[in-house]
């Protein structure tokens, strides 16, 4: 494992999957994994296999749905798409994440001696 690659925080992957599906429309598991890798500029350390645990979790909560279909190059694959409930959840979570991220960047930006 390369130290430079980011370990995923708990729950981050779920959010990434939701966002990817919103942006790209229905996708299969491999497609979602590839897309996340590409967008992150290969900075995220992701065993592609781990995406399936995230997918089943999101599906059980009713935020995404799935159905078997055929890929562009005529291969059978399971396609996932975001549901209405999933979109709502995504917008809430995204706001939370941005708030947290800005707080984190401010906290980490503190200079020694308490001055900014």
């Amino acid at each position: 494992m390369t130290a430079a690659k980011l370990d995923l925080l708990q729950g981050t992957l779920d959010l990434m999957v939701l966002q990817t599906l919103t942006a790209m429309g229905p996708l299969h598991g491999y497609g979602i994994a590839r897309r996340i890798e590409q967008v992150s500029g290969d900075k995220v350390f992701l065993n592609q296999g781990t995406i399936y645990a995230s997918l089943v979790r999101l599906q059980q909560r009713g935020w995404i749905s799935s159905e078997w279909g055929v890929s562009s190059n005529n291969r059978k694959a399971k396609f996932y798409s975001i549901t209405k409930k999933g979109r709502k959840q995504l917008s809430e979570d995204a706001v939370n994440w941005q708030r947290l991220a800005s707080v984190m960047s401010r906290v980490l930006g503190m200079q020694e001696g308490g001055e900014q």
Partner: protein
Amino acid sequence: MIDRLQQFFHRVTSIFRRKKLDHDLDAELASHLELAIEENLQRGLSPQEARRQALIRFGGKQQAIEQHRDARGLPGLEVLIQDLRYAVRALFKNPGFTIAVVITLALGIAVNATMFSLVSAFLLRRPVVHEPDRVVVVTSINPARGFLPDTNPVSAPNYFAWREANNVFSDISAADEDRTVSLTAAQGKPQALPAAAVSSNYFDVLGVAAHLGRTFSEGEDQPGRDHVVILSHELWQRRFGSNPSLIDSTIRLNRENYVVIGVVPASFRLLGFTPQVFTPLTLTVADRATSARKDHNLHVFARLKPGVTLEQARLEITNLARRSEQDFPETEKGWSAAVRTLPDFLVYNFGIRNGLALMMTAVGFVLLMACANVAGLLLARATGRQKELGIRIALGAGRLRIVRQLLTEGLLNALIGGSVALVLAYWGINFVATKMTFNEAISAVPLTLDRNVLLFVLGVSGFSAVLCSLAPALRASRTDINTVLKAESRAASAGRSHSRLRTVLVTCEIALAMFLLIGTGLLIRGLYVVEHQNLGFQPDHLLTAGINLDSARYKDAAQQISFVREIIPRLQHIPGAGTVAVTSDLPATGPGSVRVQIKGEADLSTNQARNARDEVVSADYFSAAEIPVLRGRTFTEMDSATSSPVVVVNQEFVHRHLRDQEPLGKQIRLDVTGPTPKWSEIVGVVANVKNYSEAPDEDPQVYEPFLQRPVSSFSIMIRTKADPNALASDLRSAIEQADADLPLLHVMGMPAVIDLQKGGDVLFARMLGVFALLALIFAAIGIYGLIAYSVGQRTHEIGIRVALGAGSKQVLRMVLLEGLKMTAIGAAIGLAASLPLPKVFAAMFTGLLFSEPRLYFIVPLAIIAVSMLATYIPARRAASVDPTIALRNS
């Protein structure tokens, strides 16, 4: 929230759709790889490299599958199901083992459940009253020691004084629980019923509403308005067919008309109190008089004021009692008062707690032994399974997981054992219930397999599961893979530490069995002694019956005397009847104790006061009971109200109170109720009679002639030539001719009276005997199992010994010695532990003698014999080991 619920639902259902979901996942992962490989090929990689890259990027496939499963299902539950499935498989794989474990646990749990049903019925059932812990019972403490001296009822004057002066009770009521009424229903024969006379606010204090009709209202305890009655639910059902229109109708009680105003709920039952009829308690001016202070006949129930604690109430009542003592030293000297909450009082007053605690301890030991046996079996099997466990650990099973799995197995065993135990306990409880009928208060308490017992069985099963599988489980989890997998299956080193733990367990079992057997032996011996003691009179061929003369027809002494004078000749005319007598108390049934003063002797202080048991008897009492007359004379028809008072005393009286001086002619005064007692002359001395048929004590006793001090409640005694019960119907009709409205109480032979008196003790000793026997059997099974197992393990070693020239006798001796060592150590520990038992029992069962030194030889011998037998069977097998077979087997 709904999302979570939905997720949980999916997780649960996914456990049952495991196959389909796994299949789906497989297909999905396969398509994932294909897509990845295809993309890599398009990027120009060789087919081999494309596949390799795809696999790398995917990561561990098995890991992904596991993650997916964990995310979609309930991992904890799935492990449990897996463990259970595994445990069930293990159970069926070795049915003999399973049956042994289940039966052992079932027996252990069943005896505990049966005993616990008694605890649940007598100690845990709370009285169905409003806020029972705020209701208190005020009792007097008798300075003369005796059985539960601090549960004496309160005298009426004290009740009045404390009712008026206290600041701690919001309401206070009194009940005379010790009455008998005769009920004459339409055309029916008169029937005697236990009754309570209660103050009009009694049900209000307890917070009990009538099931039907109403309870007493204020003023109904005043003379003139007091002819109202409330019936128990049981009486209403049994005698009046649950007829609701009974309310406001009139019934005959003690020859007078009473209006039925209510029926109490079926649930209202105070442990130890079994009144069928409630009438108002009318207290008059006479009950406030100083002379009434000797009559301790009221149970005082009170409700604490809001905010007042039990401790405050206790302090206040103690102070009030002290004030009474100061104001009336003559009667109150040494007396004090106690306050208990209602639930506490009922259990304490019933006096069953110690006995039950002892029984529960005994069955607790039995359960421990059952668990020790099962633990021994599991340890033995653990050795056989070590290889299996070693492999599982090597394959990556966590130690916690192994412990968890073995505990699951234990739990399954225990739960099956518990279920079987429930069936056994159901029988056991029914059996005990049919035997627990030796008095009304006991039979009034229903024994059932109730919720408490069910919970108890569940708890005990879980507890035994942990107890018997924890040691093997922990040991197994410490398995060292290397040694286990390397070692030969019959390696002696693997078995040694197991058998050391088992040896300790079996030794403890032997010690426990020893302890229980000696304890039970002592009890049985103590009971045997009193059962076969000479009571001082001849109980065989004696028919008895109780009579309670009601005050409506028999208002005064003259009428009571004339009734007795009328019936005695009638009874004597019954064919087959010999001498007839009446007595206030049947012999050996515990007559009451009174203070005695001897003329010419200074008044002694309270704690030195002379006490004697006091019995009122008719002239022929001594010849009817066949009590030998030692000196002087007994009573005659001439000792009547008009002649000078006389008494007869027993030998013990002469010995203890007169220091063996000449008794005849001495004047004594009995501190009995009523007008100031007169001095009476001792005219005769009779032999001692035991106070109680079930205890060996003989107290000083005084007999008074019925004609001089008649009582309204007494027993008839008829000496018969043949079976006394044959005369019962003649007795009934003779009394009916004298007074058709007078009911007879329990007509029975004197031996039956005695049996009833000690019925509880005999049942108690029998049950303990069963438990001790069970303990012995468990110990025998334990030692047999251990030796048999150890012989089986050592077949190889024994084979070598035999091959090297050891004779079968030597092998036999070696194995027997192994068993004997354990037995000797266990027996020594058990013996030491049971040395203080006689003292413990003597404190618990007053009056019984528990010295039986022979037991301390007999029981160890018996235990050694049993354990030698248990050892001998496997030892003979060892001795017959054929070295060629034993060595070839390896």
